[in-house]
């Protein structure tokens, strides 16, 4: 045992496993109540109270829904490609979880699973893998609507990945590294607005040349998570329920899980890149033990804010038409992102020179 | 005065051509006429300016070269597009632009009815461009460009009325005959280049005396062909080119047929300018010719023979333009034997005067034809003197001039030529010249009398009918512009077609008058009996004495001898004129009697010594038969056989190879993989 403890590889692996376990556990809970929050919020937006029967304030509503889904009968359509039909939902969840391994949720090393020097690439890679879940689900369930949904999702996600990837480049240019931890570190501290004495946290979004990238990234993140107003793969108005028309019970739940995971992931990434990650005031005051905890707190705070924003948007905006979606992605976001890259590069070069 | 812009002189007509091509259809007839004439007029002005500048220089510096750009540079050989203005080219350029301008003006009247007015002036300007290039070139190559250009334009213009078989045939004939001459020219040029390594006049003439192996060939050695020096061959070939262009024996046959073209064309190209190109070329390269006495002999003999022969033919022709054509040939003969006897200056002098009066004669003839509603047969004319006073007067002047009566232009030049021939001891040639002079005087006045004097031999009242009949006939015979310009009946011509015979419009008479004046005074530049030679001689001296080649020996004639010669030539001219009046005016019986007496001779002359038929028998038909053989055997059997054979072989081979072309990607990939395997094996075994 001691020998094992001295084997650092083993230790690292052990720690990683522990962290992953914690994250998974927490995430599942979080998602459950994220759904609850969504229903509540949309209820209040629509001047109703939302779920409030089961348990106090309806708090038990979603856990019991999950339970129900677990026990529901599983239906597999005939002529479906069984294997892929089974794999697809897992694919929806797995990339998101992988991405969590590189997100710094608090000051390293405590709150970071691993710090790979190409963390951002990991995120991009995983989000690009996210396509498969929807595409395959749509294709394998041998259903026109599902297939259409799958095709839509694949086209949509590929299109928006471009803009998303490009909009991250200014951030990389600024921080000079692909490691998410490095990116977060590059946003530590504050800076004075030129010409004034007003201090600003030197978060990405507070630098003028990163505002537009942030906007682009935000829009793309909606598209990547297939959430309104970009939820065309499951546009219930046109395709019964899009790619998961044929799915039921736990597989269907997996898709939901995946969607919310992705949401959380992308929000964390946004925070990491544009909102200083876990950085926030008063951390130095609390000393080495509680300071990091506070960092985690800041991170969670920002995260919840973003999640609220996502829900808010979903229940506010109407769905785009498909051609609008594509046109917007290719003709507006992509050029904007490219413009960002040029502007940021020029600005940084000029400032460095 | 800064450098005269030489390049602008040929550039102007070219620009006119371009404009005419681009916007001609919008310009309309007036615009086209203005454009064409304006360009030539400006060219004339530029030429005058340049020549004045040249004259302002001291004699030995009169040699302006203007480099436009380097044309080609191949190894040691290089040719420029460069223009040379020296006394010789100065005369030529003045004559060409001046006479050319007048003839352009004339054409605006003469061609007024022609539907393809624009095309005519297009060709005419193009010709001017080519001719000026020829004249102004400072090297043989560029000269050759102009040479070919004028050839092309003459072809185009002879065949101007291409819907007429005879015209197109004449055009082709002219072109082909010229090709023979051009071939000689090219070969001669190659000789020159081969020996002197350059085409530039200066370098060639400077180098020639040194590079060409000496050794004067005599006339005898020409026929024996033994030990013929290169210079002789070269000059002979060049002279062959000259005979082609200038219609000398043996290549003169095309010029009379060239009369199928519009009369201004005959005047400009086939009388005044182009046909003298040969003379110009010989005079230009006199250095080379002087180096080869044998060639000079040939030139002199050919010239004299042509002069005599053409003159004799001229006696028996009835078509007014043909008479003039043969007189042109014979006059060109004079020029050549002037060159032949080494009197290049005299030759150029005659070129100039001849340009004046021959152009005048043609234009006058054109005016007559125009007035006669395209009647060209002199036997149907007569008594026009009263009806066309201006034409008559000018024609008379020109006729006297060509006949060689002092003080008209023709006299001076012709007399100088003859005296030179005498002085250099070419007595036979001289005698031929004198004989030619008699004949010239005779047939020219025959023309004059038949046309203008005596009683009219055409029915004026019946003119419309005659004309209408005639229009139909014209199509077959020598139908002209208006043959298609207007159908059988519309007589909307300003000169009242079919109406009474009247004088031509001013646009035609004006040039006539100008040319008349020129043919009167044109000869005074060559007034004899002056210390150190007359004006023209002194003007040309820097050119003619350039190059260290001894001129043909001249034993100075005594003043008395010269007077004698003058007396002789005047006398013979007078005799000819007298005979003409006798034969055709005083007692017409004489002519018929003569014709009856020498029926055979007359028949011979009327048919131009059967030269065409002779060529047809000796050259054309053998060539034709040979080419038929080539066509039916060589081309159809051998060449086509080879081609088809290649095709069939390819087809068979590809048929075999196509088996590998399965169109199946998999197979290709398989072959590829096998190839890779082979490579692997190779590496493994190595």
């Amino acid at each position, binding site marked *: 045992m001691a020998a094992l403890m001295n084997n650092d590889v083993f230790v690292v692996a052990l720690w990683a496993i522990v962290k992953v376990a914690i994250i998974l556990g927490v995430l599942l809970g979080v998602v459950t109540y994220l759904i609850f929050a969504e229903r509540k919020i949309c209820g209040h937006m629509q001047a109703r109270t939302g779920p409030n029967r089961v348990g106090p304030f309806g708090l038990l509503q979603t856990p019991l829904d999950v339970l129900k889904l677990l026990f529901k009968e599983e239906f597999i359509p005939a002529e479906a490609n069984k294997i892929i039909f089974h794999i697809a939902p897992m694919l929806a969840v797995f990339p998101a979880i992988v991405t969590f391994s590189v997100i710094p949720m608090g000051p390293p090393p405590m709150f970071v699973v691993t710090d790979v020097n190409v963390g951002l690439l990991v995120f991009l*890679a995983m989000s690009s893998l996210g396509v498969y879940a929807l595409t395959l689900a749509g294709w394998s369930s041998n259903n026109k609507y599902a297939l259409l949904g799958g095709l839509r999702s694949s086209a949509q996600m590929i299109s928006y990945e471009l803009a998303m990837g490009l909009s991250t480049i200014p951030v990389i240019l600024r921080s000079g590294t692909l490691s998410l931890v490095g990116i977060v570190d590059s946003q530590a501290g504050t800076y004075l607005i030129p010409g004034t004495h007003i201090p600003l946290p030197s978060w990405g979004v507070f630098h003028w040349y990163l505002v537009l990238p942030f906007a682009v990234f935000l829009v793309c993140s909606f598209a990547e998570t297939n959430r309104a107003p970009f939820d065309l793969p499951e546009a219930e108005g046109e395709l019964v329920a899009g790619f998961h028309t044929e799915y039921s019970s736990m597989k269907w739940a997996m898709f939901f899980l995946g969607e919310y995971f992705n949401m959380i992931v992308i929000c964390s990434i946004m925070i990491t890149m544009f909102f200083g990650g876990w950085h926030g005031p008063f951390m130095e005051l609390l000393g080495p033990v509680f300071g990091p905890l506070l960092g985690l707190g800041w991170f969670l705070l920002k995260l919840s804010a973003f999640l609220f924003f996502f829900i808010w948007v979903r229940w506010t905006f109407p769905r785009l038409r498909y051609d609008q979606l594509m046109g917007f992605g290719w003709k507006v976001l992509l050029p904007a992102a490219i413009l960002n890259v040029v502007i940021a590069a020029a600005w940084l070069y000029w400032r460095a020179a | 005065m800064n450098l005269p812009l030489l390049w602008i002189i040929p550039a102007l007509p070219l620009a006119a051509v371009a404009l005419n091509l681009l916007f001609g259809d919008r310009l309309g007839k007036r615009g086209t006429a203005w454009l064409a004439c304006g360009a030539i007029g400006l060219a004339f002005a530029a030429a005058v300016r340049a020549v004045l500048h040249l004259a302002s220089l001291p004699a030995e510096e009169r040699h302006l070269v203007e480099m436009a750009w380097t044309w080609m540079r191949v190894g040691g050989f290089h040719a420029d597009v460069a223009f040379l203005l020296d006394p010789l080219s100065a005369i030529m350029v003045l004559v060409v632009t001046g006479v050319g301008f007048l003839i352009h003006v004339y054409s605006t009247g003469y061609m007024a009815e022609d539907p393809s007015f624009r095309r005519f002036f297009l060709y005419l300007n193009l010709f001017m461009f080519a001719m000026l290039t020829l004249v102004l070139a400072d090297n043989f190559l560029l000269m050759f460009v102009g040479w070919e250009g004028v050839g092309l334009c003459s072809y185009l213009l002879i065949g101007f009325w291409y819907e007429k078989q005879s015209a197109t045939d004449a055009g082709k004939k002219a072109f082909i005959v010229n090709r023979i001459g051009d071939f000689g020219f090219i070969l001669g040029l190659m000789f020159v280049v081969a020996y002197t390594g350059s085409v530039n006049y200066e370098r060639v003439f400077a180098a020639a005396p040194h590079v060409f192996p000496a050794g004067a060939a005599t006339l005898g050695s020409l026929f024996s062909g033994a030990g013929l020096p290169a210079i002789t061959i070269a000059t002979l070939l060049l002279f062959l080119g000259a005979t082609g262009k200038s219609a000398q024996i043996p290549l003169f046959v095309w010029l009379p047929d060239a009369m199928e073209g519009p009369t201004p064309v005959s005047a400009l190209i086939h009388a005044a300018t182009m046909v003298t190109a040969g003379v110009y070329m010989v005079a230009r390269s006199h250095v080379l010719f002087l180096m080869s006495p044998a060639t000079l002999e040939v030139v002199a003999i050919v010239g004299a023979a042509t002069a005599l022969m053409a003159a004799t033919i001229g006696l028996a022709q009835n078509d007014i333009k043909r008479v003039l054509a043969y007189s042109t040939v014979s006059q060109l003969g004079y020029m050549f034997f002037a060159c032949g006897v080494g009197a290049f200056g005299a030759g150029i002098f005659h070129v100039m005067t001849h340009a004046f009066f021959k152009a005048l004669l043609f234009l006058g003839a054109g005016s007559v034809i125009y007035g006669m509603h395209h009647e060209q047969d002199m036997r149907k004319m007569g008594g026009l003197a009263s009806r066309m006073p201006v034409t008559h007067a000018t024609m008379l002047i020109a006729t006297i001039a060509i006949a060689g009566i002092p003080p008209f232009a023709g006299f001076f030049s012709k007399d100088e030529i003859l005296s030179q021939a005498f002085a250099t001891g070419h007595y036979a040639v001289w005698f031929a010249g004198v004989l030619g002079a008699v004949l010239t005087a005779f047939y020219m006045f025959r023309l004059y009398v038949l046309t203008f004097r005596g009683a009219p031999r055409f029915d004026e009242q019946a003119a419309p009918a005659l004309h209408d009949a005639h229009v139909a006939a014209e199509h077959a015979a020598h139908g002209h512009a208006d043959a298609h310009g207007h159908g059988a009946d519309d007589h909307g011509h300003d000169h009242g077609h079919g109406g009474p015979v009247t004088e031509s419009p001013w646009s035609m008479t004006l040039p006539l008058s100008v040319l008349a004046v020129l043919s009167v005074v044109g000869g005074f530049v060559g007034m004899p009996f002056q210390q150190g030679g007359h004006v023209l001689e002194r003007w040309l001296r820097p050119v003619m004495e350039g190059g260290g080649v001894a001129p043909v020996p001249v034993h100075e004639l005594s003043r008395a001898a010269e007077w004698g010669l003058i007396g002789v030539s005047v006398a013979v001219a007078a005799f000819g004129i007298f005979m003409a009046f006798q034969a055709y005016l005083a007692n017409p019986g004489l002519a018929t009697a003569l014709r009856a007496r020498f029926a055979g001779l007359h028949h011979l002359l009327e048919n131009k010594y059967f030269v065409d038929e002779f060529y047809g028998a000796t050259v054309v038909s053998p060539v034709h038969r040979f080419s038929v053989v080539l066509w039916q055997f060589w081309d159809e059997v051998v060449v086509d056989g080879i081609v088809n054979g290649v095709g069939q072989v390819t087809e068979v081979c590809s048929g075999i190879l196509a088996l590998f072309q399965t169109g199946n990607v998999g197979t290709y990939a398989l072959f590829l*993989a096998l190839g890779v395997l082979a490579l692997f094996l190779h590496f493994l075994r190595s």
Partner: protein
Amino acid sequence: MVPVLFLGFGALLVATALMVVLHRNPVTSALFLVLAFCSLAGIYLLLHAEFIGLVQIIVYAGAIMVLFLFVIMYLNLPHDVEHGTHIAVRRGIGWMVGALMLLFATLLMRRGWAPGPENAAMIGQEHGNAAAIGRELYSRFLFPFEVTSMLLLVAMVGAIVMTKARRPAGEERP
């Protein structure tokens, strides 16, 4: 531990590649190919080529293969029918050639290898080879880099033009 991982990834790679070739359903082949690429990316990671590894996933798995899937689904291809003698023959030949090639390749690689010129140290390993690659791309390989961008542009335009839906004759393309 690294060799173990390598062997694992390698085995996965070979297996999935074989499945790509063997499986009759294009979609399944494509998915196996994705898997193969992912394991290849893993191998890249083990070879300290993190950047290439992840680009591998992004480009191949994330873009190219999605394109493949998209096309397959768009054409709605069924299982490939592959029976008949000539196909069987070709299959036999194919496998034979492949085997031979592998044999020869191994034989070739069994030979001695001349040691190549060794750089002093792997450039820019300290902070990820992404930085190093970027530096090289924008300095020594700048021209090929630009040319490649042009190539991509051309390919994009070409693809768009080719797949544009045909209009009936007479009607002009906008």
